[in-house]
Structure formats: structure tokens, C-alpha cells
């Protein structure tokens, strides 16, 4: 157990990399989620169907396969050359985005029709209603869900290690290969736990505040 001590700094750095890529992917997921979420609540049936296809596909295919597709397949399609970091971020963003669409949709739908009608009575158009009336209230449902998605992305980032992106899990594996010991994996597990559990507690607190906040 003690042999892992000199490597704790490396593991901490790995955890930071995990956090960084998850946060970046979360931001992109949010963007995708909002855009596609708006499409998913639109009145055009084809648009709604497209959104639904995207969500269903992402949720029916393993994350690893999605990452492989983005890293090995997309370069052939678009003549890009993606580094493992870029490919992983894109794949995680698309993955989180699909769940974010659900979160955004529930958020928007949690604002009842009476609000929309009242807004129209006050002369607010679609976009102003969205921005000033719906969004502030939708956040109360979407934000806790977004925190849950962040946790999933933190765990999902470990899958990026397979295409060569060095984050917490890969760091732990590399250390384990140098010192023949279980401890690096154990420490990595603890670090993942601290990050995810901490976030889920934070999410719980956010949810409770929203529930007892202003209606």
C-alpha cells in the first residue's frame, strides 16, 4: 500500500484531467441538450422525430462503441484527424447531450400551460417567454438532472482511456503496471468516489433548495 505514495500526485493530476474533460463535455452537452431540446418540443413532427432518433440511438449503443466510432470512424468520414482528447470530448458531449435533451424537455414541460397563456396575455412572444418565464423555472428541474449527467460523464470519461486518453483510470493502470500492486486502482476508486459522491450530495442539496424555494 505504501508503494503507491510517491504516485499520489500523478493520480491527483489524473483526477483533475478527468474533471476537466467531464466539465468540458458537460458544457457541450448542455449546448446540445438545449438546442435539441428546443427542437424536441417544437410543433414540427419531423423535428421532434429527428430529436427522438438522436436520443434513442445514443441510449441504445454502448459508450465505448460511440467513442470508437468518433475516434476511428469519423476521421474516415470527414477527413479530420482527432486526438484522443478531442474524440473523447465529442463522444462524451454527444452522449451527455442525449440525456440532457430529456432533462431540458422535462424542464420546459414542467412550466405549465397557464404560464404560457399568461405570458401571451402580457404580450410576450415565444422567445421572450422562453427566456424570461420558462427558463428560470425550467432550471429547477433541469439543474439536478444536469448534475446527475455530470456524474455519468465523470464515470464515462474512464472509457476514454481505451483510445489512449490518459485520465485517472489510465494513470492508475500505468502505475499499477510499474509497481505490482492493487493500491493505485484502489486510490483511483476512492478519488472517483469522492468526486461523484460529493457531486450527488451537492445535487441533492440543490434539488431540496429548489423544492422549497419560490414556487
Amino acid at each position, binding site marked *: 500500500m505504501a508503494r503507491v505514495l510517491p504516485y499520489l500526485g500523478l493520480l491527483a493530476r489524473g483526477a483533475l484531467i478527468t474533471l476537466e474533460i467531464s466539465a468540458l463535455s458537460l458544457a457541450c452537452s448542455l449546448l446540445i441538450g438545449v438546442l435539441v431540446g428546443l427542437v424536441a418540443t417544437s410543433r414540427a413532427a419531423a423535428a421532434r422525430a429527428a430529436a427522438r432518433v438522436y436520443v434513442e440511438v445514443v441510449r441504445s449503443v454502448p*459508450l465505448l*462503441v460511440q467513442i470508437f466510432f468518433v475516434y476511428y470512424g*469519423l476521421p*474516415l468520414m470527414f477527413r479530420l484527424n482527432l486526438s484522443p482528447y478531442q474524440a473523447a470530448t465529442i463522444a462524451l458531449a454527444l452522449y451527455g447531450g442525449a440525456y440532457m435533451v430529456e432533462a431540458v424537455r422535462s424542464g420546459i414541460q414542467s412550466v405549465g400551460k397557464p404560464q404560457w397563456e399568461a405570458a401571451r396575455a402580457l404580450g410576450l412572444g415565444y422567445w421572450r417567454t422562453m427566456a424570461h418565464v420558462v427558463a428560470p423555472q425550467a432550471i429547477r428541474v433541469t439543474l439536478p438532472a444536469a448534475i446527475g449527467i455530470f456524474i455519468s460523464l465523470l464515470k464515462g470519461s474512464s472509457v476514454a482511456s481505451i483510445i489512449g486518453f490518459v485520465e485517472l483510470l489510465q494513470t492508475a493502470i500505468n502505475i499499477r503496471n510499474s509497481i505490482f500492486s492493487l493500491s493505485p*486502482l484502489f486510490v483511483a476508486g476512492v478519488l472517483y468516489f469522492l468526486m*461523484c459522491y460529493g457531486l450527488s450530495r451537492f445535487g441533492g442539496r440543490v434539488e431540496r433548495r429548489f423544492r422549497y424555494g419560490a414556487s
Partner: protein
Amino acid sequence: MTSLFDPGLFWRYRSVIVAGAATTLLLGACSVAASFVFGLAGWLLKASKLRALAWVGGAYVEALRNTPDLLYIYGLYFGLVTIGVTFSAFTSAVLALGIQGGAYIAEIIRGAFTAVGHEQRVAARALGLRPWKSLAYVELPQMLRVAFPALGNQVISTLLGTALASVIAVPELTYQSQIIGDSTYQYFSVFSVDAVIYLVLVQVLTRLFHLIDHLWFGPWRGTV
């Protein structure tokens, strides 16, 4: 020199792809079974009256929900070797996916149990049913009904998790796809088909679960 999509590829490698899909299903079935075993054990531990056992159950659930699958797949296969335990690749994958799924299933069972409510147990007792009978005839069917959609989702989640077993060389679908890609370099085709097969499997399972839910549990919905 090579175009994007080469359909002839799949005919040539059809036996490899089919073998991979079969292994995926086998691995999925074993992992789901394992996750139910671990889930049941986890729930019983967590619901136990003994504080020590309840703490162990709670720790199991929280630890597994907040750590990645891949950590356990690597840990059981490559990690335990350092303390002398050598599991085969298939066993490591089944155990890893089993304990992961088990944590979620324990929570699903717990939710279903509380949903069924105390009154049911009291009423059953009042009708003269002994604890075991009450459990089997009154509580379990209702718990199953409440829990079924969530359990179905978890089964699919575990099935999708089997793809991770490819990193420890379990010859399931994603592993075979990597092998084909390695020798043909047709990565786009290979991973497209890989994705489509999972898509089809998941959609079929989802529809199947909906059907079972509707047929078996539907008529009783709304009665309790």
C-alpha cells in the same frame, strides 16, 4: 484507395460477427443474473436490522454507484492478480458488471418495497397469512409490478456495459469489431454495424419489456 462503406465486408466476416453477438448475449445474460443476485443481497443487507450489515449494504450501493464500471473490469482481471487471485476474462466481466448492476438493482428493490407500503403487510397478516406467504403472494407481485420498468432499464444498461469486456479480450461483439477493423482498416463500416447491432438488440428488448409490462401488469395498474 478505399471507399467509406464496404458492404461485402460483412458477408466475409459474418461468422465472426455472429459469434461476437452470441458472446455478447451470453455475457449479458450471465451479468444480468449476477446483478440480480448481488442486488438482492445488497438490498437485504441494507434493509437488515443489524447496523453493521446495513452499513455494509449502504456502502456497497454508494461505492458502486459512484465509481466507473471499467475500474472493476480492470481491477478484477489485472488488479487481483497482485494479490494472487486470477479470474478468467469472462468471469471478471460477469462479476464486474454484476456488482455494478447489483447496486442499482438493490436501490430499485428498495424503492419498490417502500412503494408497496406497510399497510399491505399488515393487511396480509390480519388475513392470517404467514410472513412467507404474505411475501410471496402479496408483496412480491406488487413490488415486481412497480419495479419492472426500472429493472428493464437496468437490464439494458448491463447489456450495453458488456462492450467494456472487450478490453480484457472477452470475444464479444465490440472485441470482434476491433479485430475486423484491425485487419481491414474499414473502421467506419465496422463500428457502424457494431452500433446498429446493439441498437437492434436494445430496441427489441425495450419493446419486449413494454409488451410484458402491458400484458402482465397492465390489467392491475391503478388498483393499488
